[in-house]
């Protein structure tokens, strides 16, 4: 009798429950299919050296401070733990539109450079009404090497210029794991040898895995298809032959509100793209590893989208 009463109560309860769920289910079914875009595929606008598909939103100004200590195998303690041989880059960029971003920057020696770039989103990963498995972002930049030439020969300004074009093909597989492939084309207006190409091609790959909501691990590799054979940083005829290595980097992203801190190890000393990609002489096997960090901060300059509540 007692059991029957319980059974009856359970039955009534489940009936009531299912009736309420029916209302909820009908709501879920009737929801108009909207497009859902993947957000935060990576935390920063750069993974480590490579661009990520992220861009500051419209009206947002971003400031990035990039710092790279000298290598562990380069007279580390004499160089005050790499501080004396450190390189720094500052850049400022702005979200003109959600899909268009442009910026300026400058970086320290090997070589001294001023640069400008634009980044443009062509496709955004989404599901629902509009479906795209990947995000596609282009990055085009121009670099001006302002080192003084050590020779007495006349030089054209155009000799100092190089370009980097990248296509970022990215996918956020789930809320923790994202991957990108970055075909890259670097062009130097002048190279040292006739046997060297002015147009250098490489393929970058980068991944991130979120450990917590605020912390992620990142890894990055840039494979060069036709590397240079010499050192571009000293001008002809004083150039030296050198092995320009592929760049491997491992990092940690830490996000705190409007800041993203990226701390990483990389065999690249460069803080300007063309030199990072094509002029990294150190290798991990030799211990030519640099500790580096990128710090970004965003400022909302204007707000294109106000909360449209009527409160």
């Amino acid at each position: 009798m007692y059991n029957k009463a319980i059974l009856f109560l359970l039955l009534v309860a489940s009936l009531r429950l299912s009736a309420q769920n029916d209302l909820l289910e009908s709501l879920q079914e009737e929801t108009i299919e909207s497009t859902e875009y993947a957000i935060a595929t990576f935390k920063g606008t750069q993974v480590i050296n490579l661009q990520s598909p992220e861009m500051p939103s419209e009206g947002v100004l971003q400031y990035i401070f990039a710092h790279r200590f000298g290598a562990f195998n380069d007279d580390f303690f004499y160089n005050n733990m790499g501080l004396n041989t450190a390189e720094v880059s500052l850049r400022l960029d702005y979200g003109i539109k959600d899909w268009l971003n442009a910026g300026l920057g400058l970086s320290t020696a090997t070589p001294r450079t001023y640069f400008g770039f634009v980044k443009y989103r062509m496709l955004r990963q989404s599901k629902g009404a509009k479906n795209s498995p990947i995000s596609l972002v282009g990055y085009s930049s121009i670099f001006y090497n302002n080192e003084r030439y050590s020779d007495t020969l006349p030089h054209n300004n155009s000799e100092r210029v190089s370009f980097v074009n990248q296509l970022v093909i990215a996918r956020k597989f789930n809320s923790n794991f994202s991957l990108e492939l970055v075909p890259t084309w670097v062009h130097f207006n002048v190279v040292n040898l006739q046997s060297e190409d002015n147009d250098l091609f490489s393929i970058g790959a980068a991944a991130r895995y979120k450990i917590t909501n605020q912390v992620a691990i990142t890894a990055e590799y840039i494979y060069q298809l036709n590397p240079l054979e010499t050192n571009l940083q000293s001008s002809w005829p004083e150039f030296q032959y050198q092995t320009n290595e592929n760049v491997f980097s491992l990092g940690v992203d830490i996000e705190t509100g409007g800041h993203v801190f990226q701390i990483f190890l990389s065999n690249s000393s460069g803080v300007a793209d063309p030199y990072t990609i094509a002029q990294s002489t150190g290798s991990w096997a030799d211990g030519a590893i640099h500790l580096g960090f990128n710090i970004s901060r965003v400022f909302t300059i204007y707000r294109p989208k106000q909360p449209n509540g009527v409160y």
Partner: protein
Amino acid sequence: MLAITSMAVGQGTLGTRTGSVHFYSHSPIEDIEASNNQVSSKINTDNGEFAFLVPIKAFEFEKALMQEHFNENYLESDQFPNATFTGTITNIGALDLKQVGEYSLTFKGTMTIHGVSLDFEQIVEAQVGKKTLFLVTEFYVNPEDYEIKIPAGKKDNIAESIKVSVKLQYPLNP
């Protein structure tokens, strides 16, 4: 007979897809607010059963980065895309949709946010007009109750108790 019954139930169901919910978090460091105008809801006026569905990704913030962090770090909307509130209006008998005026209704049921379901009861002001039923209410939600983790460094930026304002307008059946 069954058909007649279900028709009758159909007649007594009010619905909307453009309800709005707004939240406001006040702290000494910053105020954070967001709006969502894609709340859908159904009320069975015969037996008082109701359901509310709030798509989390539809909350719009002043700052894009806030919206990103809200979805990615706090509400984890990939995993928990909707907040819901289902239950019964316990005094549905007091509501007369043919009589223009104000009524006080008690909504009792289960609120689910961030995958955590808690019992919830709220008295809601209902205004019956000639063509619409208006529901307006305000209540407070504590993120901690719904296991929304706020890192120690952000505790000063986000209120312990967040004010939620709800406004829904249901067209009345002719």
